[in-house]
């Protein structure tokens, strides 16, 4: 992943959010990113607060159990730490945009968003078809889609279960897929159930092994959501100075995920 790219992540909504990868992006100073995702439970807010993001293409940005995203607000309202462009979507329009991207469709005409101000702020085209109003949703083709998965093989097959959000659509729409896996298993275990494979292997450019890499979000069958961690972040991100302390404590001064996990459970 490089500065300036569009990155789709948090694609299973509240579950399996690739925090480990997001924190590494912050540490590496990857900036001018465009973030793409349906809703974001905290990770978008962190990347925005860390100054990595120029644009957000999303339906909802905040902290799911607590509400507003404070860094998101500061960036939108005051340009702090830097100005942020927002391309408003609804969940459905984002899904259709990724579907269009996956299929190479020039647009998808839909009845959702008709009469909503998202048409204007999201840059959609209002049109008519046979006398009925429709909204034209243009395709999204992210540079990279990041999937946090339960298991993967080193050669790029992965199994995912639980609610899938727009993970498959985003992976098929993206130029490349990066997989972060709870577990690396032999290829045989994956081809034994090819229906559970989420994306075809030719899309996958990297597979990383990162147990608990989605903490504090839950990964079905692996671990539950760490609600307290979300609540602490929400409290400590309310003021910019507090957020900077939080960022230093949990990201910048933590060399890698191993150190993060040891810090979490000494």
């Amino acid at each position, binding site marked *: 992943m490089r500065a300036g790219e569009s990155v789709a992540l948090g694609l299973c909504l509240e579950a399996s959010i690739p925090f480990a990868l997001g924190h590494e992006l912050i540490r590496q100073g990857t900036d001018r990113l465009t973030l793409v995702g349906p809703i974001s439970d905290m990770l978008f807010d962190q990347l925005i607060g860390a100054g990595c993001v120029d644009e957000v293409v999303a339906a909802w940005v905040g902290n799911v159990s607590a509400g507003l*995203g404070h860094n998101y607000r500061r960036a939108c309202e005051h340009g702090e730490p830097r100005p942020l462009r927002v391309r408003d979507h*609804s*969940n459905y329009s984002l899904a259709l945009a990724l579907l269009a991207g996956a299929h190479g469709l020039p647009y998808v005409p839909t009845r959702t968003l008709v009469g909503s101000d998202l048409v204007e702020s999201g840059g959609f085209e209002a049109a008519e078809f046979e006398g009925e109003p429709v909204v034209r949703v243009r395709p999204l083709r992210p540079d990279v889609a990041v999937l946090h998965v339960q298991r993967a093989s080193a050669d790029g097959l992965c199994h995912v279960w*639980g*609610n899938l959000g727009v993970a498959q659509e985003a992976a098929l729409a993206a130029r490349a897929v990066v997989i972060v896996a709870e577990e690396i298993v032999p290829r045989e275990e994956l081809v034994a159930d090819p229906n559970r494979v989420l994306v075809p292997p030719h899309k996958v450019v990297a597979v990383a092994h990162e147990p608990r890499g989605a903490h504090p979000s839950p990964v079905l*069958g692996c671990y539950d959501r760490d609600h307290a961690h979300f609540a602490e972040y929400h409290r400590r991100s309310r003021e910019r100075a507090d957020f900077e302390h939080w960022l230093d404590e949990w990201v910048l001064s933590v060399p890698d995920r191993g150190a993060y996990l040891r810090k979490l459970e000494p």
Partner: protein
Amino acid sequence: MSYSEADLMACAAARQIRDGELVFVGMRLPLLAFAIAKRVHAPSAFGVFEAGIVRDEVPRAALHTMGDGANVAGAAWCTSLTNVMSLLGRGEVALGMIGGAEIDRRGNVNTSYIGRWEHPTVKLPGSGGGADIACLAQRTVVILAQERHRFVERVSYVTSPGRNLAQVVTTAGLLGMRDGELVLESVHPGRTVDEVRELCGWDLRVADDVGETPPPTAEELAALRASDVQTAEP
């Protein structure tokens, strides 16, 4: 049995669910409403969760988010957001429940921007699936606190258009759409019509047949208390 304001709101919302219907369910009060309806009067209702889940049974543990494992356990269908949204797109979802920061006389809901969207005073989290539910569910129920700054003549930004709005469940009463305008249809026990009108930013019309919101029945409260789906707060 005593009950809270939130209990009453959940029961009122539950009464909007009819048996056999597909209901687009969000967290907190909508989930409680779904649980009550399933146990009291709509045992065959289906719950649709935008993360990619359809349930014909109430989750058996408290949920903080719809992506919690307890929402997958016992699910009838676990799939993509795109697939569950298709149920909205095809017109199969009878009822959707949404929240909001602001609502106006026409039932339009704002969850996106306070002030002009180009230079907002407050950036709210955004639509999520709200705009989709409002546009595509056959009926929408909006749940929000009856506060004067939330009930405005005209929202600064229409996230979710009000055209399919069936009911607004507030902390003080129930409002319905009549002739394209929100009208006070009942006030919660202990509240007065004047009080509710005072908590509304426009000159709120009052239905001729305005009454008192029926309090939760013993059966509803029992369903609510029995429900494992408590409003999980962090």
